[in-house]
């Protein structure tokens, strides 16, 4: 039986790997996800087959817990709006983290307190280290994700929260965590109690690590927390000596890490800078005011209609504002009308647009925008001079020309979408307020820029009805 279980774990691991591989193409992605879910089923069934370890009461406990959890998960997954996907993923990351933490605690109790521990030497060292890490990483993931969830869903203020002596407090927390680690690993039985302060410290670290990070940097944080939830599962795998946990945990860990790196590159900042600088807080904005002030030229939707009617090449640049206004469907409607009018339509999507990696793509896909029209900045920038109208919908920092030209700007060097080079640029915006990062945007004062003020959805609807009447 044991052999069979190990074989099933190998099958499960292969299914996870193939599933992720199939995610690299839009055509196979959905089947890939199902394959991965199949792998999960195989792993779970194989674990349940281990009659020797699981008692009849145990089966009942497991079934009840799984039904409750699965039910909550299913209802939540069906109800969540595509706009709220970032906070949804953040919250679920947290659940993964707390699950690994609990596994660490339960296994410590079972292996060290309830039964006489038979481990020694390197095995004892690794298992106790893994228990500690599962609790530490799981705890950081849990509270970090809750804070990220709060900030993304605007239940708490999205601004970076900084206070005097923050570095000192964080240093003290890290030092205490290291001390507890050494004590616990030296003698996991005698120093079992240090797991309690360690747990509290991990929770505190998760909070302290996330509150100084501003809302605009949230894509990086979610990617990083994603990675942590994988690493916590990995640590749990070392605790029970289970390969499938280690393999899949590492896959998730690597995935989150790569996404984190991509996000940082797209903002031209180092991970350390994102995590510790409190970007967009008071001191960061001081150096950023641009010389390019002037008068922004407003335009009514009626006038915008005439420009669009004559356009043969239009690029939409969506940002978080589109998500907030739920404007994706009406954007697509306008795009259809423009296409029927003989115009080429594309959507230029910046890697950090929105509040999580790929967020805009999901929203546009929800509105039935064909996959081929979604392009990356690198593909559209060289042709920007040929674009008649670039329509910026609720994006700000990702189209800020200061990133190219103004060395004193905090976002200098960040790759942007060069909408200022298009023949005409429409900016749909509620007001002249600066963006999430709190940086001035000289795009608004450009020669060829026209501001269309108001709610993005209402503006889009006005344009659509103009076309229908005209």
């Amino acid at each position, binding site marked *: 039986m044991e052999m069979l279980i190990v074989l099933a774990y190998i099958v499960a691991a292969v299914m996870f790997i193939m599933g*992720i591989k199939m995610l690299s193409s839009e055509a196979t992605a959905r089947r890939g996800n199902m394959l991965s879910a199949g792998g999960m089923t195989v792993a*779970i069934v194989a674990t349940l087959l281990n009659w020797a370890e699981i008692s009849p009461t145990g089966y009942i406990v497991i079934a009840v817990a799984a039904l409750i959890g699965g039910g909550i998960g299913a209802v939540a997954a069906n109800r969540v709006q595509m706009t709220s996907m970032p906070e949804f993923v953040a919250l679920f990351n947290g659940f993964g983290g707390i699950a690994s933490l609990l596994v660490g605690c339960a296994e410590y109790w079972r292996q060290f307190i*309830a039964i006489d521990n038979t481990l020694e030497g390197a095995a004892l060292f690794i298992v106790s280290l893994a228990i500690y890490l599962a609790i530490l990483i799981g705890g950081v993931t849990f509270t970090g994700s809750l804070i990220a969830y709060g900030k993304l869903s605007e239940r708490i203020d999205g601004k970076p929260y900084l206070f005097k002596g923050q570095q000192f407090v964080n240093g003290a927390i890290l030092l205490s965590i290291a001390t507890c680690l050494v004590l616990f690993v030296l003698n996991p039985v005698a120093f079992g109690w240090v797991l309690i302060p360690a747990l509290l410290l991990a929770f505190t670290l998760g909070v302290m690590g996330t509150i100084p990070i501003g809302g605009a940097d949230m894509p990086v944080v979610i990617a990083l927390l994603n990675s942590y939830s994988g690493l916590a599962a990995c640590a749990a795998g070392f605790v029970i000596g289970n390969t499938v946990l*280690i393999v899949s945990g590492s896959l998730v860990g690597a995935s989150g890490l790569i996404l984190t790196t991509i996000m940082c590159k797209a903002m031209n900042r180092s991970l350390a800078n994102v995590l510790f600088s409190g970007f967009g807080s008071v001191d960061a904005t001081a150096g950023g005011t641009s010389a390019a002030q002037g008068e922004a030229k407003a335009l009514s939707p009626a006038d915008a209609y005439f420009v669009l009617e004559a356009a043969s090449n239009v690029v939409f640049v969506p940002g978080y504002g589109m998500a907030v206004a739920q404007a994706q469907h009406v954007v697509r409607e306008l795009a259809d009308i423009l296409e029927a009018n003989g115009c080429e339509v594309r959507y230029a999507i910046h890697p950090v647009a929105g509040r999580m990696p790929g967020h805009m793509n999901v929203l546009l896909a929800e509105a039935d925008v064909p996959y081929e029209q979604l392009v990356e900045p690198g593909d559209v920038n060289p042709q920007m001079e040929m674009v008649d109208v670039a329509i910026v919908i609720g994006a700000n920092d990702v189209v800020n020309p200061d990133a190219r030209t103004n060395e004193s700007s905090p976002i200098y060097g960040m790759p942007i979408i060069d909408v200022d080079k298009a023949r005409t640029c429409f900016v749909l915006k509620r007001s002249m307020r600066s963006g999430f990062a709190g940086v001035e945007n000289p795009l608004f004062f450009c020669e060829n820029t026209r501001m269309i003020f108001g709610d993005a959805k209402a503006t889009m609807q006005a344009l659509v009805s103009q076309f229908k009447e005209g």
Partner: protein
Amino acid sequence: MSNQELILLVFTFVLAIFLGYELIKKVPSTLHTPLMSGANAISGITIVGAIVAAGATQDSTVSVIVGAFAVAFASINVVGGYMVTDRMLAMFKSKKKGGEQ
């Protein structure tokens, strides 16, 4: 767990990290949100550890109770993660392959 088994676990871990890196590098940025929620669902694999802890009622009641909570949280992650990923991926369509075009 013997030292031999331990070395194999570490070996598996290192190889899996490299494999993950190579695999995920190839995922286009368009699919990063589904990748993330899919990866999130995979991290629910910790349910295997939770089952082991919750099922061993002969060892300790404490670990069973804590394990049961772990099973519940991990199930939220697994079921919700896969379902929402599927919901998202179902929306990604090519123009050629149909829809109402």
